[in-house]
């Protein structure tokens, strides 16, 4: 027969288990709602991206005080003037990269680590660089806690890319940039794609999709998030 101490410990464990599974089920439910309404509902079709959005726990990447808002389709502050992007934009950028399980992707600006985790569910390796040390450290811890073994992260200046892993099938620049660093163009494979959001903090107004064709020629496409599309059509009527 268990003595009283063991009973108390057992009881606490049961309560903890019940609460944790309830909380996790709650987040799962919210995640599912978000995916249906804002990911599939707003036009994301890539199955791998949808699966990844269903799998990665966004609540682990936001600040503790924002956990309850983790599945609202909005960006959230993560400190140092940086944000975790709106889930829809993360999904859209990932879809635009057209990556698959054999690809190696470079991410400039790890931030919260959420975008890297979404990519890690789809590709072979994600290399991610963060210039702000505390953010790099925090993201590294989350990757370890969630067992993302295919994410290579480092603290450093992403401007020069990551020569060691280059060339990349795709590059995603999540940090604000007023120009595309020439070293990144060099480290992009022929036929590769690069994606950069443009706008003020919290608001992505245009995504720049850069394609390097087999001849090494570059084309930039302006991708307008769904929210701005109707207006564009009206402009030249």
């Amino acid at each position, binding site marked *: 027969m268990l003595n009283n101490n063991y009973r108390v410990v057992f009881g606490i464990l049961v309560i903890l288990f019940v609460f944790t599974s309830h909380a996790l089920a709650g987040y799962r439910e919210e995640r599912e709602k978000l995916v249906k309404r804002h990911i599939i509902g707003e036009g994301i079709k890539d199955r791998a991206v949808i699966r990844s959005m269903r799998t990665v726990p966004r609540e682990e990447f936001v600040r503790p005080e924002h956990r309850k808002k983790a599945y609202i389709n909005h960006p959230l502050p993560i400190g140092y003037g940086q944000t975790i992007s709106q889930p829809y934009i993360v999904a859209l950028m990932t879809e635009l990269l057209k990556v698959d399980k054999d690809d190696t992707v470079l991410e400039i600006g790890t931030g919260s680590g959420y975008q890297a985790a979404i990519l890690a569910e789809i590709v072979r390796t994600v290399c991610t660089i963060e210039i702000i040390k505390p953010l790099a450290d925090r993201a590294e811890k989350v990757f370890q806690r969630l067992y993302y073994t295919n994410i290579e992260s480092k603290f450093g200046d992403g401007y020069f890319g990551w020569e060691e892993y280059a060339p990349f099938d795709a590059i995603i620049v999540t940090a604000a940039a007023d120009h595309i660093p*020439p070293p990144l163009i060099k480290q992009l494979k022929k036929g590769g794609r690069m994606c950069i959001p443009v706008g003020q903090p919290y608001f992505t107004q245009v995504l720049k999709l850069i394609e390097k064709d087999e001849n090494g020629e570059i084309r930039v496409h302006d991708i307008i998030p769904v929210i701005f599309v109707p207006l564009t059509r009206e402009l030249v009527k």
Partner: protein
Amino acid sequence: MKNVKIYLPALFFISSALLALEISLMRVLRIEGFGNFTTTAIALAMTGFGAGGTIVFLFKRRFSGKEHILSMYSAVLVIFFLGLGYYISKEVTFDPLRIVWDKNQLLRLLFRYFIYAIPFISGSVFIVLAFLIKRAGRAYFFNLSGSGFGIAVILATLYFIPSDRIFIVPLICAFLSVLLLYIGLNPEFKHVIISLILICAGFYLFFQGRIHILPYKGIKLALNLPDARIVLRKLSPFGTLEVVKSSKIRKAPGLSLAYEGPVPKQLGLFLDGDSLSVIDRRNGDETIDYLRYQTQAAVYELHQDPDVFIIGLGGGTSALRAYLHGARSITIAEENPHLKQLIVKSMTTYNENFFSQPNVSVVIGSGREQLRQIKTSYDIIEISETDSSVSSIGGIYSSDINYASTTQAFREYLAHLQKHGTLSVTLLLRYPPRNLPKLINIAHHALRKSSSDPLKCMVVIRSWSSGTVLIKTIPFTQQEIEKIKAFCKRMFFDLVYYPGIQEGEANQYNILEEAIYYKITIKILQYDRSFVKNYPFNIHHTTDDRPYFSHFFKIRKLSFLFREMGRKWIFVVEGGYLVLFSTFVLIIILSFILIIIPHFFAGARLGKESIRIISYFSLIAVAYMFIEIVLIKKFLRLLENPIYSSSIIISSLLIFSSIGSLKFDLRLWRKPRIAVYAMVFLTGYAPLLFIILDILYLYLRTAPLVLKLTISIALLAPLGTIMGIPFPAAIDRLRKRREGAVPWAWSINSYFSVIASTGAVLLSSNIGLLSTCAVAALCYFGAALLYKE
């Protein structure tokens, strides 16, 4: 009631404290990152002036006989609440970008508005009490001259007191006011103790407070970089210039994707923590070749060894580009003298002491003014927003007025070009398209008015983030067009327009869903007026009468934009104008509530006499503020610098108005119906001044600044002096007939001053400066009809 002689000097200092507070609050909020909400915060804080009148109106009987001691406490409370407000603002931070979905931010904003309004309410109680116990003309004299003094003091101190300590100026002014009242009143011991505790608490809280700069302001982001540090800071009323050094700063807006070389190390240059420009740190063999790979370089394809005139120094990038392309001479016009000093100094360390070369010169003043004075023609005149964003005037003079980008300005630039010369204008593209279309429209009108064919004299190109418009007075030759086409092909830049372009040639490298820029440009150049009229954003050409380049919002398109842009995203696109408009509506509602309801609480009826009081005091408030604001904008054209126009107009009007009210008080001008004559004079003189200014501009535009300033003051003297009469004259009348209504009249006047300060910008951007001045004149005329001896 005691006759406290020192009471009016105390009123002088409390008035200076409130004006100094208004200006320093503007500085603090801008630095903090309130952005578009700064105007609202200031406007709502200023409604505190009216609220003070409302309080005295409601509690007049209780206040009766205690006016002096209450005045002292009002001044003490200004100190206490100013310190408390500053301390609280550190704890209750506001993030304007999150307001779209975070309701908590709205509450924080409202709280901050309230906190800032309290010192104005307290100070205003003092002023209203002064109007009750002193003669109106005399009280008005000390009130206005004190306000003028407040402006002078804050201007002087902005050179050496950093923004996070600038509130010390209004605190000291308010303290001097209390000190004078201590001397004059000799209050009871308990009052001394209570007030001293509150004063000490106010100062203590102030020194505990600090500005919480938003984390995503440019300078904060730069300082997050591992090796970043501020190496230079320059304080002035033009704004705070700061230079940040870090090996990680690199800026090259719109850099071609064809560029494979390095971007040199750069220094970050910030104005009020934003508007990043860079100073290239080229040492020895380091290359600045990247400057050849931006759309601004296109103009150098057309000219060999050109003489170049650059408007806006920025970090010196445009000048370096001209040098790189072998310019024979480079002349740069820069409005901010401190920026010139800073850049020239920086360039002695880097870039081989660039500015010491004999063919490079920097002149202080606006581009238009300098072009007129130099009287030389150039091969290239260049304006680049992307290179010189830091050249805009910040500080308390930051203005949405832009006389450098009006149709008349473009005509002047074209007139200063050599026969084959080119005007090159570059800006960062804004989405949805609006600033490049407006620029093209301005160029189109300037060319038409210069008798050139816009269809043949314009070329437009764009990169992934910047657009450049090239304009000539004579048609582009086929050879020149081929050069531009080859340049664009090399750089992966897109041709938006050139004479003879086909739609298929546009939208090749930086691909939009459709060739939208091409289509817009064609419609503008074909002079499709209905297109411009119906475009969702304001892309009308700006003129010297409506010099608002950055106003793109159209009120009549509000519902359309609101619907199309997911209801809240419109804030992101044109938040500034929307916030201004919302502020205007909000203040009107608030003012009406605070004017009408207290009237009933005080047991009065809203009869004919009350409506007459409301109408009269609102009309003279609107007229005064409209004239002040449109004159600041109008004189900017003559004086060419916002610091001169703002200082001269505000201080001249305050000082001359105070003289006018004193003359009235001293019975020098106490003839019957003097107020009516004054308002009739103003009805004619204000618009006449506008016309005189237009004529003078033609003759004085090349005159020395001292002469321009002297003539400006001479023109303002009669205006300001007469504008000082209608308010004290009516207050005097009211005191004799219905004394209890004096605070109410003050509050009406204050509320409508705030409404008018916002309304003047909205109105003038729609109907022009002259028409707004005409409205002000009509307001004075209406007030003259209402005035009864």
